[in-house]
């Protein structure tokens, strides 16, 4: 293999040429034998594409193979479209197979000619997992020479998963020297090693194991494990064992990092849902059981805005943030003016009244929006994950929500510490008669504070709509956790809420692998009860005058 690579390096001038020729030669070589047996008289590309639109799923599979074997210039285009679900067929006769482009325009699948007539309703040509997987493998072979770097990389990655055969390995060896992109080259080398590791020659196996050392690609572990367990050659066996050890060592580090991220991300959800409560319960002392439903209102606001702007899903999310704040805030002010202000200083009545409000809001959502969940779509940039390496990837939606949670937290902190409203809020919560004596309109401040807390709950709802269901029960799931976080962190202390949320999130995620999701939740509640017994005022109790009840 090394010899081959060196030879190719010498032939710089003919690289491009050779690459194509080799690719064609090998692809054809590997496929012709099959093609001959498949049919006596070769079907034309046009007929085959027409055949794709009809017949059973398994027949479609055979047609796909034949189309790939034809190596027609539009084979890749058609198969890619089938894979992506953009290959469609007209409902009216004569049936016509078309490809829907990204801009909704149609082209003829066989010729690529643009179609301007109205073809009526189109039917997507359905594929199932087996076919999808077959397409992946076929396309991986065809896409290896693609000029697009990402297509090449995903093609090679597919070959790593498949394990590969002799033909692919030869093809890859021919291509690897030519490859300009380092990461594609690395992937190709891994793919070659994955093939070599099955070799009968112990030396080749040993070299392959060495090449795979430190690789974090999950597929690598399977073959290494089997070599480490029962390779006839002692050297290979030892090498495989040490390679596995080094991989395991690195994996452990990444697993830990991953767990920390999971914990922080769960914590950020707790933070978002609890931070509004930290204002209404923490600062004002109102036990608001309808807090969860205010989040629900925020989530429904996101849905409504998305319905109004179906083509701007990303933008609608940004519009939803202030809108949800205002809508939930106004509902909050209405609750405060309508019910809670008559109940200040009577915590039990407040609790019961707000619980009633929460039931009314839930049922209102059922009546207005139906009891079914509403589908909120995720913008493109919210789905998928940031792959740091094959063993560690961070999902985008969680990452953004973590950042968003912290932003909301600091914005709130600024409002409370630096604005005149914040000053008044703190004044009223610390000493109501004194604040009134110096001219603060206490009841007006109460309403605004409650509105602020509720508005933030609405913002939390926007974030939650990206993670979970938008339905009437959304709020119920978070209310207990929110109270838990605020009490744990220390009532009336925003920093306590931050530390409490992150602490509970981390604790939960580190306990879950050992205890399971159900028991982890129970254990956290038990630990929290014990903690409150010891420190009834939470992690960061209020000190000085503010602490006086």
């Amino acid at each position: 293999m090394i010899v081959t690579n060196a030879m190719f390096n010498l032939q710089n001038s003919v690289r491009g040429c050779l690459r194509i020729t080799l690719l064609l030669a090998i692809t054809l070589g590997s496929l012709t034998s099959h093609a001959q047996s498949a049919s006596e008289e070769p079907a034309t590309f046009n007929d085959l594409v027409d055949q794709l639109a009809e017949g059973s799923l398994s027949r479609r599979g055979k047609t796909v193979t034949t189309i790939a074997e034809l190596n027609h210039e539009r084979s890749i285009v058609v198969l890619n479209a089938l894979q992506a679900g953009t290959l469609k067929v007209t409902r009216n006769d004569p049936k016509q197979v078309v490809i829907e482009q990204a801009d909704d325009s149609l082209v003829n699948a066989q010729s690529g000619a643009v179609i301007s007539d109205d073809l009526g309703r189109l039917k997507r040509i359905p594929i199932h997992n087996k076919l999808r997987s077959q397409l992946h493998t076929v396309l991986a072979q065809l896409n290896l020479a693609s000029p697009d770097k990402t297509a090449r990389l995903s093609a090679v990655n597919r070959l790593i998963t498949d394990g590969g055969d002799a033909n692919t390995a030869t093809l890859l060896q021919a291509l690897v020297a030519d490859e300009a992109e380092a990461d594609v080259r690395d992937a190709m080398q891994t793919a070659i090693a994955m093939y070599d590791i099955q070799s009968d020659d112990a030396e080749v196996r040993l070299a392959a194991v060495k090449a795979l050392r430190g690789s974090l690609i999950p597929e690598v572990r399977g073959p290494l494990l089997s070599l480490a367990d029962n390779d006839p050659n002692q050297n290979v066996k030892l090498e495989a064992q040490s390679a596995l050890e080094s991989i395991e060592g690195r994996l452990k580090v990444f697993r830990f990092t991953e767990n920390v991220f999971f914990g922080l991300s769960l914590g950020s959800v707790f933070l978002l849902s609890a931070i509004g409560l930290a204002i209404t319960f923490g600062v004002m002392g109102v036990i608001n059981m309808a807090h969860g439903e205010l989040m629900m209102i925020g989530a429904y606001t996101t849905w409504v805005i998305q319905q109004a702007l179906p083509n701007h899903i990303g933008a609608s999310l940004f519009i939803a943030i202030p809108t949800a704040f205002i809508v939930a805030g106004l509902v909050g002010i209405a609750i405060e003016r309508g019910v809670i202000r008559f109940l200040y200083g009577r915590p039990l009545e407040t609790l019961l009244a707000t619980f009633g409000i929460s039931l009314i809001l839930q049922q209102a959502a059922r009546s207005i929006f139906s009891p079914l969940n509403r589908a909120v779509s995720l913008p493109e940039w919210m789905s998928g994950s940031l792959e740091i390496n094959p063993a560690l990837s961070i999902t985008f939606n969680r990452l953004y929500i973590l950042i968003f949670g912290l932003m909301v937290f600091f914005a709130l902190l600024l409002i409370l510490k630096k604005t005149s409203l914040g000053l008044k809020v703190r004044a009223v919560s610390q000493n109501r008669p004194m604040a009134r004596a110096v001219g603060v309109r206490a009841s007006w401040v109460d309403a605004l504070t409650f509105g602020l807390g509720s508005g933030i709950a609405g913002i939390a709802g926007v974030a939650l709509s990206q993670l979970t269901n938008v339905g009437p029960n959304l709020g119920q799931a978070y209310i207990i956790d929110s109270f838990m976080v605020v009490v744990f962190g220390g009532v009336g202390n925003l920093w306590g809420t931050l530390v409490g949320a992150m602490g509970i999130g981390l604790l939960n995620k580190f306990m879950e692998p050992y205890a399971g999701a159900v028991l982890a939740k129970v254990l956290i509640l038990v630990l929290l009860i014990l903690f409150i017994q010891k420190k009834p005022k939470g992690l960061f109790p209020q000190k000085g005058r503010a602490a006086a009840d």
Partner: protein
Amino acid sequence: MIVKKLVKTVGAWGLACGMGLSAVTTQAEEDTIKVGVLHSLSGTMAISETTLKDTMLMLIEEQNKKGGLLGKKLEPVVVDPASNWPLFAEKTRELISQEGVDAIFGCWTSVSRKSVLPVVEELNGLLFYPVQYEGEESSRNVFYTGAAPNQQAIPAVDYLMKDLEVERWVLAGTDYVYPRTTNKILAAYLKSKGVKESDIMINYTPFGHSDWQNIVSDIKRFGSAGKKTAVVSTINGDANVPFYRELGNQGISAEDIPVVAFSVGEEELSGIDAKPLVGHMAAWNYFMSVETDENSQFIDQWLAFIENDKRVTNDPMEAHYIGFNMWVKAVEKAGSTDSDKVIDAIVGVEVPNLSGGTSKMLPNHHITKPVLIGEIQEDGQFLTVWETDGLVPGDAWSDYLEGSKDLISDWTAPISCGNYNEMTKKCLGAAE
């Protein structure tokens, strides 16, 4: 029509109040046959059960258009047990003792059924239960028109094992009785097929679990051992959306690790953006996409009744369709709505199902159904990729569990027993 409107208006007001509403009765002008509809219209289960209430109202309306039953009109009596399990029992008592209904169609969760069970047995009522369940139960007064484990879980696992050559199994479920029993049966079944203990991973999560990050990452790791892996999911209700989203975001596609779900149907999918789910599977006895005349007629009827052409149909709706038609036929056969006479008459009754066959009521009060496996498509519908050759008879007692494999249920003479031990030739009676 006026009656329907009235039910709707009264229902809407009751809902708006949000309080446990008492029986919503329609104006009874003459002698009618009353049918109880016992589905939660508020609380957590309203999301699934409201549709079934509407299905029942539609079926009853259709039957009345055809001239009613035994020359009388049918009259629906709708109550709201509000997702509150003890309230299910109270409402059942109210339906039978006060309203005098002749049959009840209702319940969704197993715990609600268990709560209703002693009441219908005591008052000798009839309950038609339309949802797939864990089996291990048989009552003289209950008809199980949903799937038993051998009509859903076992065929699905067979498909994965034979067609997809799956060797490693993740059994993921919500922590309550249906997933736990189903997984127990599945684990026993897999072991009997030679799957090693280390190749089975069992995971339970609480109701409404929303943070799936590390569980999905565990599944990914479990699936990277070089053997084909699949997830058999009995995850219930709301927890599914964040679960599938997490799978999509962590880049696990249906090709790598397919998920077969037993609780995800068209209705659940209509509340999700289905793109990240494409290719994942579900096992049911009915899909909306099945192309039969009965089905397209049923869909048209449903869309016209609900006045919303975006609504979908699903498996439990079909179960109610079958159950209701069986009850109608049995009443006609018996010439009476008397419980004992209907129980005797209904065994052996055959009615067409919606997936192109004829379902039959068996002596064990389960029915025969086809089993379909479908892959989720982008539009939230299923593409049928596999189905059983014929109809599968429902089995109340699993053949793979110690303690229940010798039991059969047969409510016809001479056995007339829900848990008859074939080895000892004894009826265990109402021990449980």
